[in-house]
């Protein structure tokens, strides 16, 4: 399950809803990863653009991988502005056993950072500044720049 929200996430409510949704499905381990906006470099917050069609297919391929191991993934992300100390991202793995969940949450979060079509901007003095230096080119990038 992938949910997008305008602005900051209501973390306690999302964590509670997901926990309750899976309460009787016999998962022994539930590991949420919560990402919160840090005060750094004088920013007022962050802002996000999301390209949903490719995000959805990327997420579906991970859900398939999870399913093959008997696990389930849930993810929530913010669109638009999220201010300091608010949260913009939650990824969760439910699985029967702890090792699968511990390994999956790590792999999922790292691939999310490298591949999910989401763009981050710093909010600085009322301006939206693309965070190029913290961004990662998606695997296979650059083909249009190849000279004949």
């Amino acid at each position: 399950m992938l949910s997008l929200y305008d602005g900051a996430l209501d973390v306690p409510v999302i964590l509670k809803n997901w926990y309750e949704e899976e309460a009787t499905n016999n998962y022994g381990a539930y590991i949420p990863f919560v990402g919160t906006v840090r005060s750094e470099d004088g920013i007022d917050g962050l802002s996000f653009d999301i390209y949903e069609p490719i995000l959805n297919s990327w997420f579906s391929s991970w859900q398939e991988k999870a399913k093959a191991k008997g696990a389930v993934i849930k993810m929530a992300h913010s669109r638009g502005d999220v201010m300091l100390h608010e949260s913009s991202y939650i990824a969760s793995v439910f699985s029967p056993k702890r090792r699968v969940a511990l390994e999956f949450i790590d792999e999922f979060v790292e691939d999310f950072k490298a591949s999910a079509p989401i763009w981050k901007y710093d909010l600085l003095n009322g301006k939206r500044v693309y965070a190029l230096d913290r961004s990662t080119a998606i695997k296979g990038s650059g083909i249009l720049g190849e000279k004949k």
Partner: protein
Amino acid sequence: MIRVEFLGPIQKPSLELDIQNLSELAAVLQQDDEMSEWLTNCAVAVNDTLVSSLEVPLKDGDKVSLLPPVCGG
């Protein structure tokens, strides 16, 4: 016609181009000075599927998207 979309921070309106493949798109965009930096770090999707080669044929109505470096979370 092929529709070319520029996602995220690329501040550029969509284009409608009469091209047959991604190599032709590369040739067109390489003429555009403001695109030069993006071309080296953007991924390319055809009809919302990422592709890793310019040898992709395009047909009328296809959509090509340019995805600059990402940073979710």
